[in-house]
């Protein structure tokens, strides 16, 4: 190959791969709210309806972000009241992956009372966004400067 052509090819590959990487990274882990009703059977995966909010993580053995996500969500569930954490391994269960529409791992479902899907997260979750959602759902927020139920007082402070 002509050296000049080879250089152009390498430059295109670098620019292309960098763009793809930036795009991929910017889309990882966002909390995406779901309003349309779903008829997922979470009980079949072992999810119970005891907690107000359930975090359900789908994993496989080939997923390098799954162990870290498990640690982060597990500690979040211990820290915030009325939040429970479940993990389901899809490595040998393609049928469940199809049923729940999972194409990549980790994927996290945020579930109301063990029944209703309220949000889903693709990729390693952005915990700040997840905490915001939990605060919006009325869980005692753990962020000292933004307690949800003190909105009124904050507003009066701002105006005064």
């Amino acid at each position, binding site marked *: 190959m002509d050296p000049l052509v080879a250089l152009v090819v390498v430059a295109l590959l670098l620019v292309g*791969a960098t763009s793809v990487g*930036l795009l*991929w990274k910017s889309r990882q882990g966002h909390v995406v709210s779901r309003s349309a009703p779903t008829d997922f059977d979470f009980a079949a995966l072992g999810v119970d309806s005891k907690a107000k909010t359930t975090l359900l993580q789908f994993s496989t053995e*080939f997923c*390098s*972000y799954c162990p870290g996500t498990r640690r982060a969500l597990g500690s979040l569930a211990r820290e915030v009241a009325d939040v429970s954490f479940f993990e389901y391994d899809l490595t040998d269960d393609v049928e469940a*992956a*199809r049923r729940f529409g999972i194409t990549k*791992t980790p994927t996290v479902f945020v579930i109301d009372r063990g029944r209703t899907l309220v949000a889903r997260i693709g990729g390693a979750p952005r915990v700040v966004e997840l905490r915001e959602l939990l605060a919006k759902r009325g869980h005692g927020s753990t962020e000292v400067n933004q307690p949800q139920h003190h909105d009124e007082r904050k507003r009066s402070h701002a105006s005064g």
Partner: protein
Amino acid sequence: MTFFLGLIGPSTAAETSIGERLIDPAFLLLLVLAVLFAIGALASPGAHPFGIFYRKVIVPRIAPATLFEAPKPPRFAQLVGLLVSGVGVVLGVFLPWAVVVAAAFAFVAAFLNSVFGYCLGCELYLFGQRLGAAKSAT
């Protein structure tokens, strides 16, 4: 893609013989990479030349590790690398441009992994499983 192939098309005229293509530096380099991917995917991580280098040269110079990554995700990525570079080597015997195309795919995957932390096992495993399941169902 057609533009890409057009770029490298003219220099890959049909006059090269199989012998010439087999001693082409690009072909040999991809062959070496394929062998490295094969060791990473099929043998134990400790048997990989980079693993041996790490153990003999790097480990004695740094603080001992306390956390270890599970071996399955990187081995899956090595397997994908083996498939891509293996296809490139096999096709490269007949089609010179196959070497460049396969190397380009392998480069993009390795670049995304090392620079952005893109994880092939996270993105491709279930996708492949579901593709396979859909095929066997029809």
